């Protein structure tokens, strides 16, 4: 009974984190889309400190470029999709730790390789590839964080004590 209660509280805690991530991420995406749609220079200037904003590397919305590049936008969208995926599909109980590591490392490596190949002029400015790789990285990071999240413990749970460090020593 206690175990079920603990499990339920843990899963509720992860759901809350995923909900928060989806909400904040969604708000950020909305702001980015609004800044592009209204062609708001002030907003563009704020986001210039977290992205290079090279025009040819940004997705275009209604004739105006987004204030962050395709990879950054993909990462933010990926984080939101990862959080939504956890909310509705409960991926925490389905994905193993090995799978999470493999996906996270794979997505990071793929993005690094893309940057390297561009620097070596193997290909130039593949906007859709950059967006998709960013999307994969964002989703992978969100799932990695949510599925490995440390959740609060129930007081006096089996095997736990509420002793403080001073009492322990």
């Amino acid at each position, binding site marked *: 009974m206690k175990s079920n209660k603990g499990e339920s509280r843990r899963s509720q805690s992860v759901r809350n984190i995923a909900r928060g991530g989806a909400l904040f991420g969604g708000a950020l995406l909305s702001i980015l889309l609004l800044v592009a749609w209204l062609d708001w220079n002030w907003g563009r200037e704020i986001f210039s400190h977290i992205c290079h904003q*090279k025009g*040819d590397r940004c997705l275009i919305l209604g004739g105006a470029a987004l204030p962050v590049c395709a990879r950054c936008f993909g990462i933010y969208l990926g984080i939101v999709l990862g959080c939504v995926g956890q909310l509705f599909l409960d991926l925490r109980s389905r994905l193993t730790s090995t799978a999470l590591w493999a996906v996270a490392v794979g997505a990071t490596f793929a993005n690094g390789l893309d940057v390297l190949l561009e620097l070596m002029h193997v290909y130039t400015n593949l906007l859709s590839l950059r967006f998709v790789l960013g999307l994969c990285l964002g989703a992978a990071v969100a799932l*990695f964080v949510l599925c*490995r*999240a440390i959740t609060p*413990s129930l007081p006096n749970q089996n095997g736990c*004590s*509420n002793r403080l*460090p*001073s009492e322990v020593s």
Partner: protein
Amino acid sequence: MTEDPEIVNLDECPIKPALLSGGAVSFVLTLFPLSYAVCCLPLVIGGFVATTTFVSKYRIRVEIKVGMKVAILSCLAGSGASTTLYDLLWVAFDYRIGLKWYLELLSNFAQSAPESSRDKLLESIDVLKSQKIGFGVVVQQALTVIVTSGIGGAIGGAVASSLFKKGSLAQ
């Protein structure tokens, strides 16, 4: 999966050392306009360092919200301090850190950019050159520090808190 049986009181783990280390990294990495080349990575690294310092110093594991809080606060401190120093040098000596390098970078971008975005880039170079510090600029910088620290710190702190899972649970 077994859990460490002890629970540590979070109030007994001051975040000052973590703020100092994460803030120092954020300060150094945001002082120069690196973000134009590596996006929010400097602040993600700063936040990651802060939360890692926090969990390793007290040998604890923390919930995501705690890791994110420590990381965001350290990023705010670090990038806030670098912005303040930038403004002080701007006001006192009319010198802007990294501006020359940034203008060169933008000019290079403009040369290789398609015609549609070239004009906008050239326009932004002119705006940057003629920009004067004032209330509007300071408000914009404050918003920038909050937004960038929020994004970078949240990502760095969340990753660090889910990566290090050894030690007593602090709550």
